[in-house]
Structure formats: structure tokens, C-alpha cells
């Protein structure tokens, strides 16, 4: 089956079996390996991507469902001006939110998704927003710190106009 997706702003064409999941399409056919497989049943969130701006587990989405739609993966998250980290990614670095790093691409996307819909989340809301993303290393606290700090900074920036 032929697939055409807008991935990280770039139109990508590929051919894959019709039953390919979005996760495998991204990893095996488009070679975007920043999206990880942790459980393949939609429990761990390591495969999180944004589909038309909405956070999904790409292991549970058929590539066919994503056909013609817009997908954002970790490879599409970076600073506006260059390929370096954006403010949320930099906060993950600064707050020690990263250990083994395997869940981190999904966590970053979950954080972005939250901040898009709720620019001023409290810690409980942040915890709820990343509850679908399992991390076995960090205990989540520094991840929550990083998302919270980014929210505050983005708000300050916006209020300055």
C-alpha cells in the first residue's frame, strides 16, 4: 500500500504492507528511530507522536489511518532557529529529567501536547498528562519540573508579547 504523510512538515511517500502500524512505518520505512517501541499495546507511551497535533500511541494507529495526515515525531521537535533543543528539551537537560533516555522522546511529545492545550498546568495536571508515558528510571519528578519550568517561561515570554 502507498502512504503519503506530512511528517515533521515534510511530505513523505513510502510503500508498506497495509497492516503496518504508524510506529513501524515511522521506524522501519521512514527510518525515524527517535520514536520507540516499548510494549506495542499502547501502555507505555514510548511510541508517542502527535497526529494532527493530538498525542497518540503510534503502535495503536494503523499507518493507513494516518495516511494524508500530519505527524510530528521527536525528530520534528527542536528550536525554531536551528536543529538544537527547543525550550522544553533544554529544560529536560537542565532539570536532570533524562536518565536512560528511552522514554524521553515520548515524554517530550507528551509535554508539548500538554503545553499546547494547557499553557499553565499545575503539577497534578502535568503528572496526569504524562501518566500514559512510563519511565522506569527517573521517578518522573525531574520530568515534571522540566515541563513546569517550560510552562512558566513560555507564559512569561507570551506576556511580554
Amino acid at each position, binding site marked *: 500500500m502507498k502512504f503519503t504523510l506530512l511528517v515533521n512538515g515534510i511530505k513523505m511517500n513510502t510503500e508498506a504492507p497495509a497492516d503496518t502500524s504508524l510506529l513501524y512505518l515511522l521506524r522501519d520505512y521512514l527510518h525515524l528511530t527517535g520514536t520507540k517501541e516499548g510494549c506495542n499495546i499502547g501502555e507505555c507511551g514510548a511510541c508517542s507522536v502527535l497526529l494532527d497535533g493530538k498525542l497518540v500511541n503510534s503502535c495503536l494507529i494503523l499507518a493507513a489511518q494516518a495516511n494524508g495526515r500530519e505527524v510530528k515525531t521527536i525528530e520534528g521537535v527542536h528550536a525554531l532557529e536551528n536543529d538544537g533543543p527547543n525550550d522544553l*528539551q533544554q529544560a529536560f537537560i537542565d*532539570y536532570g529529567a533524562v536518565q536512560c533516555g528511552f522514554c524521553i522522546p515520548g515524554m*517530550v511529545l507528551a509535554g508539548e501536547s500538554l503545553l499546547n492545550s494547557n499553557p499553565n498546568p499545575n503539577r497534578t495536571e502535568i503528572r*496526569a498528562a504524562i501518566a*500514559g508515558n*512510563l519511565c*522506569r528510571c527517573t521517578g518522573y519528578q*525531574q520530568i515534571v519540573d522540566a515541563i513546569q519550568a517550560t510552562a512558566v517561561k513560555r507564559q512569561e515570554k507570551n506576556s511580554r508579547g
Partner: protein
Amino acid sequence: MAKTQFIGKPATRVDALEKVMGTAKFVADYSVPNMLVSRCLRSTLPHARILSIDITGAQNIPGVRAVITSEDFVNHSRFGFPIEDMYMLAYQRVRFVGDPIVAIAADNEDILLAALAAVKVDLEPLPGVFDPRLALQPDAPLVGENPREAEGHPRGNLVIDYIVRQGDPDAVLRDCDITVEAEYTTMHQEHAYIETEGALAIPWPGSSGVTIYAPCQSPFIAKNNVIKTIGLEQEDVRVIQPYVGGAFGGKDDTMYQTATQVAKLALVSGQPVQMLFSREESMIASYKRDAMVMQLKVGAKKDGTLQACKFHGIVDSGAYSAITPFTAWRSSIHAMGPYRYQACAVDTDVVYTNNGYAGAFRGFGNTEVCYAIELAVDEIASRLKMDPIDLRLKNCLRPFDTTSHGQRLGEDVAIVECLEQVRKISDWDRRRKEIPQGDPKQIRPGEFRRGIGVAAVFHGISLGAEGKDFAAGTLRINDDNTLTLTSGLTDYGAGSRTVYTLIAAETLGIDPNRIHMLRPDTDTALDSGPTVASRATIMGGNATQEAAMRLDTILLTAAAGLFHCQMVEVLREGENYIGPNEEPATFDQVVDQARQMGLVLSTQGRWNAPENHWSFESGSGKPYFAYHYGAQVAEVLVDTGTGKVEVTGYWAAHNTGTVIFPQGVLGQVFGGITQGLGYALMERVDYDQGYIQTTNFDEYLIPTAMDVPDIVGTFVEKPFADGPYGAKNIAEPGLVPAAPAIINAIYHATGRRIQNLPANLERVLIGKDLRKEGSNTACKLGLHQE
């Protein structure tokens, strides 16, 4: 401590950028031309004799490139340490559901699945042992490869046993005013690293050599296993650590099997071979934290002075011994907790069963026994109506005490400081006063009850008397005046690459950004033993410091040459070297001078741990050269209508010595406590007649961000003389006391002390288990081969 530039200062993880950008490559992210996919056919029976294996059907399928069994290896692929009782692929018998029998490499997944289905394995089921309490009965079926005696020996399933002895505890217990006697049980725990097992092997063209990418506890152990079981030479095998997506002790034996299987498949097929585990395969095939049954009797005087401790533990090693002889030894050493006694006796039996198999998991035997002793000690406090922290302070080990093992401790003992600190930061005294002790008879059903509990921990540093204990590192200055640092120890995410970078930068007085710390590779790093036992900071840190001091001496020699002065006259200011005439030279100038003087800008450092000794016969000695100390307080809210426990507050104080990498140490504490919270409340690998009942994250629950409160972590930074810049370890001890702290808090809330982990809904609510209906084989094996 002297003023430092980098040690203990805010720093960021050296690999954080790659990880947040998604560019850090894990083994599943590697793809090379002509790469085959591979998988193992695994046993679906818990115990059976292999009557025959017919692989011709699989071999005849086009696109199948290699099919291997134990016959393709030296000595039937036998391996294992310290006891060699395991195979890379099963030989003659399978001993647990998930035991690998045949490995196949093929062009793609479809061909691979067809090939797995085409293998004919004739298995004759054998009776199994599923209850570790019955494993040593005279009529128990024998599980192990080489039971220590012939069939019929009354203790045929005994892997090994250990003792600790001090005085005559029975006599002392008879004179005690109060004794607590109870049985405590813990369940198998799954490591649940989010990255499952996997490996990639690439054969070298025109030779017998192979390069293996494998996320494992030690690339050197992987290499040696490949050499031994495939029959290769040292120079034929290179093992490279890709990024590791979490390990927690779990990427040992199973990963050595996987690495060896892909190496052999690559050598047979002549093509690169990748093997990746599904989550189901990972949970079924990998080893767990062992389950333990513990009988404990502790006696005290009326004033709360602990007098004697008797412990008997049965460790379920499962189908293979793996590293369990060492975890069980650590259990034995730590079974009486960080307390003083007049007498004690510890007996630990490690037994074979057909319940998967057990191995290393963060805490390494201490996690289980800490739960038991910290509940028992708490129970004594409760019966004597003493404050639980006061009772612990009254009895805990102090500097220069002699332990129950007969070990005289040093001045670094810091448990009093940890208890006092955690008491303060948790506002313990106020909370204990405000929250009344729960009483099951008084609780109205549906009432929410709050409780607060404490647990203390000591944890022997590094390997102890398990074996030789050393680490090594290398440091060199490259042509562009950057530095390359290596260690034989792996950073799974705990932060050791950053710690070593900071130590080297501090020692050399240079910007950490100049230093590039490599991941371990058997061709570039020096063997340092396995990255286990929270040994990275002390062992690898000392080795790094040693290498850096040697390089520093070389550079000072060059600076002295440049300034025409004595080495002792050279001062440092930032990266600059200052001569007696206050003439500064940059780092680059000094390095150039060193080159002109013909000095070799490459050093090695090795650090041997101080000597330990243990007498297995007398059950005494000096098991570890020193210990980490800590104390944690948990606050819980229990819904007495449903049994749901919410952890609402958490405080920890740990004796880390000098903190080298602050955000890393905090991350270890937060992460460890979270794993311990899962162990306390929800994590449970259930083997039913040998069939694992939890094979993915829908059934095996680990804590989410919603299950953990904000944690307050603090450190007792009493410098440790044997540690680099005074540092101690932290990785494991953060986890160990979490379960007993939470269970003791539940007791405070409800008056019910939960003696079987985990404290799931029904145990909290009605004090016993409810059984799942249905067949034990209905679990989702997900082995993709039926």
C-alpha cells in the same frame, strides 16, 4: 573538603542532548545492509525432557539463513557464573516457560515466523517444583542441571546455602522481654526497563570474527561467554555497548544468551543478525528479582534494646542459579538490618524451582530482607509504644561499632545522621503526633486513613567478598587537545559517564566540555568487572581519578619544563598553568610542550577495592569494605473501602558522601523510591504452575507519574575516605527501604502490617489474596510460535 570547580556543582548529563533530540541510538535503532531478523523458539512447558529437535523443516524454507541449537556450540553452550548450570540454547531439558531451544535468523519476519512454526520439538513433560518451600522435600522433582547429590538426596534442589553467626541467639531470645516472630514473603519483580532486550551481531568479512552491539551489564562478560561457547579467540570478538534503555540489574544472563545467539547466527549465515524482544518475550524469558520466604524472630528488652535476631530465608532461584548465589549472600549479610545485637543467626537456602529464573535486580537481595527486618523492628516499636525512629536510633550501628558479622566499622557510619535528617525534613514528630495509630477494630469501612512510616537501610558497597573487585579507566589527549576518557563500566542512564567526566575535569583542572567519555567497547576500554552493585561511582570514579592524576603529573612536568622550574612551583588558575614568574601558559601550550618533550599523553588508572574476607563456614568476617546508610519516611492515605493506598508524601536521607553530580544523585533517589513504591504496592510477577501471568504493561503495573508524590531527597555528605572526592554510592540504596517505609505507614494508618508483598487492594482491604479464575496457561505467552 577543599573547594571544587566541578564536583558537586550544577552540571548536565553528557548524553542528555542526544537523548532529548531522539538521536541517541539504542540497539533496535541500528540497521545495516543485509541485516537478518532472528528469534528464539522457547519452551511453553515449565519442565520437560527434550526428546528430539528437528530443524530440517525450518532450514528448508527459502530465506531462512541460520538455524541453531545447543549442538552448534562448545560443550552444548553451557555457561553461567558463579555456577555453570545454564545454556545459550536448552540442552536435554527445558526448565521454565520461556527457556530458549532453537534460534533462527531469516530474511524477514514472515519467513522467520514460518520457520519457527516448522521446527519440531518433541518434549516429554516432567513434574515441576513451583513452591520454593517444597523444593527441598525428599520427593521434590529435581530441577537443576547438576543437583549437588544424586537423585533422592533430601536437599537435591539446593543451589547453595549461607549462614551468619554471632553468639547463641536462642539463649538470648529466651531472656528477651519481647519477641516478634513472623513470616514475610516477597514476590518476583520485573525490571521493566522500557527498552527490551536485543542485540546485533555483524560478522567480519573473510574471518571468524564478529562485532556485537549488546546493551548488557558487562560487555566483557558477554565477550567471554561468546568466546567460550562458540569457541573463538580473544581477538575474534568485539562487544560494543550501544545506549542502554535501562537495566537495573536485568541485562545480565538473558542478554549474554541473546548476544551469543546472534553472534552464532551471524557467523553461520555470514550476515548481520539483529534480535529484538517483544515486551511479552522480555517478560517471559528474562530473569526477575527473586521471590523470598522469610522467617524472622527478633527479641528486645523492655527499653527497646534489640537483643537477638534469627532469620531463615528461602530464595526462589527458579530454573537456573544465574547470579542468585550472590544476591542471596547479600541477603544473608543484610538480613538483620543496620542494628546491634547480642547474638544472631542467619540461614539462607537458595533453591531451584520451575518459576522462571531469578537474578540481579537493584538492591540485590537486600531489598527483600530490608522489608522483613524493618517490619519486625517497627513491630517491636509498636508493641513497646516507642517511636519507630527512637527505637532505630537506640539500636542502629554507629562509627567504630562491630557488626553481627564481626566487622569493625569505620568512622563513615552515618545512620544516626540519616535518621535524624529524615525525621526533621519529614516533620515526623508533628505528623506522628497528629495522626493517631490505626486500629482495625475502630476503622469505619470506607474511611480514609492517613499514616506515616519509616525504614532504615545499610547497603554493602560494591561486590564485597563475592570476588575480585577492581575498575580501570583510560584517558588520553587527542591531537585537537580534546580528551577521550574510557571506563569498563556502563552508564545505563544512572549518570556515571557524567560523574567520570566531572572527576577527570576536576582532577586535571580543565573544562569538562573538553572531555569526551566513551561508552564501553571491549576494544577500547579495560575490563572493570560488571556494572552492578552500585559500584560505578566509587570503583570507576577512583579509577578515573587515578588516570587523571597520572595525566596531571605529566602535564605538570611539561609546565615545569616550559617555565624552567620545579613541578611544585607550578600553580593553576582555571585551565591556565602559572609559573614562578607569574607567567601563565594555557592548557594548549602546556600540552604542546609535553608533546615536544616526547611525553606520552595517555594514561590508565586502576583501583582495587580494599580487601574483604568472609568465612562461609563460620558465617563471619568482613563482607564489604564499607556501607551506604540511609533512612526514608513515607506518608500514605488508605481508602479502607477499597484498599487503595496512595503515597502522599515521601522523604529520604542518604549517606552519599560527597555528591559529585547533584541532579544525577537526586534522580537515583527519585527513581529508586519509585521502583520501591511499585514493589510495595503493585508489582507482582505471578507464576502459576510455572506459567507467568503478567506479560505486558497491561497486566504488570509499574508506577506512573500519578502514583508517585513529589519526593524530598537529602544527603548526608560525610566524606568517605575511600571514595573519589569523598563520594559513596547511591543507585541501589534509594530503592531498598521504600517498600518497608510504605508498609509501615500503612500499618500506622490501619493497624494492619502487610507481611506479603505487594500490598495490593485485597491484601490491604481483607488481608488475603483473591484468586483469579481460569486456567494458568491462559496467560498471553506472546511467543509468536503456536
